[in-house]
């Protein structure tokens, strides 16, 4: 039985006990799934899980606080759920977690590049058909059909995924997969640029930020949302001017607020409509969190986030010596 069929069975089993089960269903174009909120067995018929199930559904859990819901999670999504549990943002008894081994999700932009058609002539929306079979994906665009290996077009986060299986689940279907290594190569690569280059890189990138705050709203661990300092006047951290400075500052606010909490699901960057690599700030923070506090967000629901605690002596923190 396919993973998808097994998941459907698991969902049907959970359905009577919950307000709804959050999973994925067909999206508006063949390249992606859309979140699906299942209340009836008919809804479950539309459920899909696989390389198109990109979005992290944990972002919706807080809206249901106090009502029991089911959620289908990939490994990375499960870490968001775990971190939310660790921070008591949701109650364990309110959520039924259905996990499966994730083989990676597709990155639409990579597919577009791989298709061999001239880049400028292609929009994601032009893909007419997409079929998944085994390790390959067959894409039809502009009357041309191309077969690609899934591993070549998965999201970058999938190629460094340590936790492809749900780290916490009430129901788990399928065979667990091996995790991969993450050596923060992207961070090192970025640091290879000079300081000035890095600074000007962000200045240029932020110029096109439209301040839609999708990076914030797609983040399962951004808890203020409706009361965010980004638009509040009291406190007044930011002006509403179309300034790279204000826009960069917001990204740094987001990154600092996620310090020691971020689980690296990458939704902030995926949500960005103008492709600003905002996930990079959090990658810096996550590496520092691992280095300083040997902590990874969203792995242990009992763990205290490192910035909510301290040690009397901090052997890993190298303080400046003024002598």
């Amino acid at each position: 039985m396919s993973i998808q069929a097994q998941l459907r069975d698991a969902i049907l089993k959970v359905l009577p006990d919950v307000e709804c089960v959050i999973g994925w269903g067909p999206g508006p174009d063949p390249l992606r799934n859309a979140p699906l909120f299942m209340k009836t067995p008919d809804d479950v018929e539309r459920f899909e899980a696989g390389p198109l199930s990109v979005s992290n559904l944990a972002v919706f859990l807080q809206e249901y606080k106090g009502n029991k819901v089911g959620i289908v999670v990939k490994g990375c999504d499960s870490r968001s759920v775990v971190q939310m549990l660790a921070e008591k943002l949701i109650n364990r008894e309110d959520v039924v977690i259905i996990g499966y081994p994730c083989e990676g999700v597709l990155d639409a932009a990579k597919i577009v590049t791989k298709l061999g058609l001239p880049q400028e002539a292609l929009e994601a929306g032009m893909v007419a058909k997409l079929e998944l079979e085994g390790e390959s994906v067959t894409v039809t665009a502009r009357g041309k059909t191309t077969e690609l290996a899934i591993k070549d077009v998965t999201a970058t986060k999938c190629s460094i995924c340590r936790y492809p299986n749900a780290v916490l689940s009430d129901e788990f279907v399928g065979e667990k997969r091996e995790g991969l290594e993450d050596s923060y190569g992207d961070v090192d690569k970025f640091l290879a640029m000079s300081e000035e280059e890095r600074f000007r890189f962000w200045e240029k990138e932020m110029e096109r930020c439209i301040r839609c705050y999708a990076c914030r709203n797609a983040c399962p661990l951004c808890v203020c949302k409706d009361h965010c300092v980004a638009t509040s006047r009291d406190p007044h951290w930011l002006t509403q001017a179309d300034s790279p400075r204000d826009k960069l500052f917001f990204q740094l606010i987001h990154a600092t607020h996620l310090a020691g909490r971020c689980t690296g699901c990458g939704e902030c960057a995926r949500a960005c409509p103008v492709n600003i690599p905002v996930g990079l700030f959090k990658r810096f923070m996550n590496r520092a969190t691992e280095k300083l506090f040997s902590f990874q967000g969203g792995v242990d629901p009992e763990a205290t986030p490192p910035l909510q605690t301290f040690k009397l002596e901090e052997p890993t923190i190298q303080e400046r010596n003024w002598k």
Partner: protein
Amino acid sequence: MSAAKFIAHTDVPAWLAELAASMRVIAPVTEGGNVLYREFDSATNGVELNRKPTESAKHVLFPRSEALFTFRKEPVPFAPDSLDPATEEDSPAPRMTLTQPEAPKPTVVFGMLCCDAGGVTTFDPVYGGRYQDPYYLQKREATVLIAKACNEPLKTCFCTWVGSDPANKRDADILATDFGNGLYLEALTERAERVLGSKLLQDAPANAEAKAEALHAAAREAIGEVPSLEGIDNTLTTLFDERDFWWSHSAPCLACGICTNLCPTCHCFTITDEKASGAGVRLRSWDTCMAALYTLEASGHNPRGQKAARLRNRVGHKFSYFLKNNNGRISCQGCGRCIKSCPSSVDIRRIVLDAMKKGCAVKEAANG
């Protein structure tokens, strides 16, 4: 109105460079994997006409932020006599000087999508209606819009549903049609003449009109079947209190502002002050009805505190309220950006079609 013109693709950069000598030239350019409407740079000549810009061109007429005016408190001139408390009352009060921004530069937007030009004409009655908004109207008057007929609609495009067209002649000043070797330029308004004087422009070939029409028809065809949205305004009013309808459609919504920010017709803004010591600026900047803060009152009351209420208002504005205030014109231009860029795949077409279906059911139930 001047006769139709033709310009070879190879001459376009030179033409834009010519225009740039006396005007601000905005054109779609590639930046960081996106196509964005930006100031044309004759050094790079990078105009991108084959892809659809990620964002609309509304920022040309309605910048993401703009200064409404600056204010400055003029210091009271020092008068030794006034140090006496008895005479302090009589000393001149500090003055507050307000300064408005400079008049906008003449501008041309080259190669904008017809749906983006349509966005501009939905702004017009809002910004030039009961009250005249000088900031918008001055830019509008100073700007020539050159739209390019769409030759390859995306899967998310639905302009024909909402009374527009991939090659509509209602909205822009000039309509350009891509003949493969160059652009066929039809002047649609008098404003067009401001940019059609160049020697690089040739007279249009003899069969051009028919050829353009065939291309337009093919694009129209590519969008496919056009469902009827007859009576959508009243249908949405009928569905206003259908909680489940709005709840289920808004469930995947992240309440971010991608849809409103990319939309060519969303025109809402906020006004905030920034100040340093004795001077400052009153800014107007884009705002989004998808944010809870947008309607939050100082008392803490929020008429649209739930994201379902906010989505209902956005869809309601585009497909109902705007129609009632503007002779039945749907404000949505069917550009599909809100669908294409939505991280949660919320599809406004599905909401509207469901509303049509559900509205019929509700009416039938009421009649039967």
